[in-house]
């Protein structure tokens, strides 16, 4: 049984993991994740890498939408900004990835902040429409600024490298993406234990009263756009290193909607929820593909229907979650955990 409250200092009370057991479980989980490249096939390695990238992007979106309450449909575009920045910095300037990735994040943060300015006046759906405008502006720039983006034909990206070290394969990139994702999750977790993160949540709960409590609401909304877009930019950078060639087609609006789906299904305002949601939404089409593949011998027409089946299942999953678990998979996880914490005395 893991119950009772025996904390004696404030530092202990504010600790990252509630118990030593939880900390050890987390390290064990990370160790298991490190083992993935040795056991996974090329197919699953590609999927795992995309899951990690989605985790970073969904965490970024959750910081803005789940924690600060600012709905954004600009995520596909911000992902593109991170990816094109990577193409430019790594391609034109030949910079090593330890510089390229954070720089791509910072460039995206700046762009995100600019497109966050309408949040001064707009809320909810109106803000969503304003960020949708951001999407189309960035898409337009990506398809027409040929000298930097390669236009509609796209642009290729050299393999991630630093001196003699080259990360070209999915397996090699996995060892870069895993610590990046884990580090950024830890960073976000810490952020919400301190001043800035708490101010974000306060703005989501009550913006007028936040202002009266001395939170400069507009500044912190922009800051939330910046931090969120930094995460998305880093995800875009990893995506570019994996794809090696990108064009505007990699960043349709459906990517932004998928990511909103991730945080809704995973849990708005929950970091764990971003992870669950990213895993679920990334795996969903792959699992469907396996199922339709297996059934295609008996129902050959299924393969042609795949795209619509995928959309249907995605929509259905969101609707079911909104009805039965509006707080997302993370909330379900907490229920289960609390149940076992008190087992067998839970009722």
């Amino acid at each position, binding site marked *: 049984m893991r119950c009772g409250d025996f904390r004696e200092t404030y530092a202990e009370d504010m600790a990252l993991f509630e118990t030593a057991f939880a900390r050890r479980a987390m390290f064990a989980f990370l160790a298991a994740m490190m083992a993935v490249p040795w056991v996974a096939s090329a197919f699953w390695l590609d999927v795992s890498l995309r899951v990690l990238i989605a985790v970073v992007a969904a965490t970024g979106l959750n910081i803005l939408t789940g924690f600060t309450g600012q709905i954004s449909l600009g995520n596909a575009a911000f992902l593109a900004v991170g990816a094109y920045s990577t193409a430019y910095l790594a391609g034109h300037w030949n910079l090593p990835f330890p510089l390229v990735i954070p720089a791509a994040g910072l460039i995206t943060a700046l762009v995100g902040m600019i497109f966050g300015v309408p949040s001064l006046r707009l809320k909810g759906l109106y803000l969503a429409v304003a960020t949708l405008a951001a999407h189309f502006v960035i898409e337009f720039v990506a398809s027409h600024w040929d000298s930097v983006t390669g236009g509609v034909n796209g642009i290729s990206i050299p393999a991630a490298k630093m001196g003699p070290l080259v990360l070209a394969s999915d397996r090699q990139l996995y060892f870069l993406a895993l610590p990046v994702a884990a580090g950024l999750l830890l960073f976000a977790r810490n952020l919400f*234990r301190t001043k800035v993160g708490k101010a974000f949540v306060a703005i989501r709960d009550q913006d007028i*009263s936040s202002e009266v409590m*001395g939170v400069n609401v507009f500044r912190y909304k922009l800051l939330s756009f910046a931090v969120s877009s930094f995460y998305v930019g880093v995800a875009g950078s990893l995506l570019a290193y994996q794809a090696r060639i990108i064009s505007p087609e990699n960043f349709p609006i459906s990517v932004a909607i998928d990511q909103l789906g991730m945080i809704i299904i995973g849990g708005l305002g929950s970091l764990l929820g971003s992870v669950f949601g990213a895993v679920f939404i990334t795996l969903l089409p792959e699992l469907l593909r396996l199922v339709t593949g297996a059934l295609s011998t008996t129902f050959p027409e299924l393969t042609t229907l795949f795209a619509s089946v995928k959309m249907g299942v995605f929509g259905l999953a969101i609707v079911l979650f909104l009805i039965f678990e509006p707080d997302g998979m993370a909330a379900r996880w907490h229920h289960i955990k609390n149940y076992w914490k008190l087992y067998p005395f839970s009722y």
Partner: protein
Amino acid sequence: MLDVRGIILHFRGVAALSDVSFQVKPRTIHAIIGPNGAGKTSLLNCISGVYRPQHGSISFDGHDISRLTPSARTKLGIARTFQNIALFKGMTVLDNLLIGRHVHQHTGVLGGGLYWGFGQREEIEHRELCEDIIDFLEIQHIRKKVVGTLAYGLQKRVELARALALAPRLLLLDEPMAGMNAEEKEDMARFVVETAEERGTTIVMIEHDMGVVMDLSNRVTVLNFGEKIADGTPEEVQRSKLVQEAYLGEPTDLSA
């Protein structure tokens, strides 16, 4: 300490405040009374910056604050509570208080995200200050509770706690005892007096309960239909004919 001059505030032609002036002296408890709709809350909103009056000026410690945003006024040391509680309902009591420490903290995105070192040290320091206030207002038992789940009277107390976490020099309270039972009122009255005496905080308080006003306040300003109709010590105000008429439509003894 606070100097309000010639405030005129109207909403689409409807006057909420017409030419209201009054002064608050340091380290006093200053009550604002008046019938419903008299403009008391509007006046507080003008002082804290939630409303912008069309005319008039407000100065705090000799500085004109009329043009400052609410958050900028808070940074100068003005805190407030709301008539219909405006806590962060989804957050714990402790987190609500920590938001009160916002203006006194310096951790940025990097310091917070990297945490160990500066961020943690600052968090603990401010946690201790919040715990002092939690002890002062006797809300230890609910510090980890989510505010939205608490009873009304407790929420009012948490809102006072959050305002005190700001360590303000001027505290604006909008009907802090409304809707409370006698015992809760007594506690709240004690907290208000102790805040003024022990922390040296100047308090402007809107209150309906005449008994409380007469007991606690050093000075009283009376509003009626957006106009100031009296201003003085509780005794002076009580004797004013205008006030008695405003309250009951005819001259009556308020102390009765």
